[in-house]
């Protein structure tokens, strides 16, 4: 229910921002109908859970983004240097350990890896991720585990929440 409600509110705010009409009752009504329809379709597709609508991690994810953006800037500069001088590149593929326990946490970690240029997560297999890197140094950095720790921290809010839900017998 919480997920359905937050999805509905989010969609309706999106409608308002995109249309720019705040007072026309017809357009507002159509917005309510289409948001409700989308929530219904999501419910039918069984997407209304913590994975489809990850409201629980939103706060910590916002706190994680500035650091991620800074990493993106740094690795962009590194890749730009490689483009100017292609002799620098030494592509390499390696497995990197991922300590996240939930699927959502793994998705966040893998997406963070892919979002920073110079590293692409190719495959997830249990507790490790196959990473293709443009320079061996970036694999070394990933093994250092800074990004892993930070995504763990974002995921932490999700786990506390699901523990609470499971504890109350709702499963």
């Amino acid at each position, binding site marked *: 229910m919480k997920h359905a409600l937050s999805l509905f509110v989010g969609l309706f705010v999106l409608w308002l*921002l*995109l249309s*720019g009409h705040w007072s026309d009752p017809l357009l507002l009504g159509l917005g309510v109908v289409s948001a409700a329809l989308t929530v219904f379709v999501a419910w039918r597709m069984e997407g209304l859970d913590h994975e489809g609508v990850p409201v629980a991690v939103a706060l910590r994810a916002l706190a994680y983004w500035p650091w991620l*953006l800074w990493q*993106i*800037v740094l690795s*962009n500069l590194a*890749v*730009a240097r*490689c*483009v*100017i001088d*292609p002799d620098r*590149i*030494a*592509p*390499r*593929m*390696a*497995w990197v350990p991922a300590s996240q*326990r939930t*699927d959502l946490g793994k998705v966040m970690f*893998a*997406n963070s890896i*892919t*979002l*920073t*240029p*110079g590293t*692409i*997560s*190719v*495959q*997830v*297999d*249990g*507790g490790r991720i*196959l*990473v*293709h890197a*443009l320079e061996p140094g970036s694999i070394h950095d990933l093994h250092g585990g800074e990004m892993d720790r930070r995504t763990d921290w974002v995921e932490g809010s999700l786990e506390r929440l699901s523990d609470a839900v499971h504890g109350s017998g709702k499963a």
Partner: protein
Amino acid sequence: MSLVLDVVSWACIVIGGLFCLLSGIGLVRFPDVFTRMHAASLGDTLGAGLIIVGLLLQAGLGADLVGIKLVMILVFLLFTSPVATHALAQAALLDGQRPWTRDGRPTEGKLDLRDAADDDFLLDDRAPGRSAFPDQEAER
């Protein structure tokens, strides 16, 4: 004040354009699919980001909601580009594209994923009796 803002936004837009150009050059110069993906993600992240930030400084969160739409475009780009890149990289690897390396050695990561032909589970990990993450299931 507005002059400073103008200069900063112009710098952002031009540098973003330069990053896009670099990504294009990399797309042509790099030796194989995977390295070209790195080059393409250059334009997807900092190229697009800087251009949109520069335009945001020009527009402000204006009355006709241009700024908010710009932010949305940036957020959608940042969410979709890694997903598309990952799907591409995985499909290319499973299809038998071997990553190029400087010394011709295959690479240090193990490439023969269990069975490359049996890759259905990647799209369809809820099939009964077959899990994409067997180790994880065992943990639970």
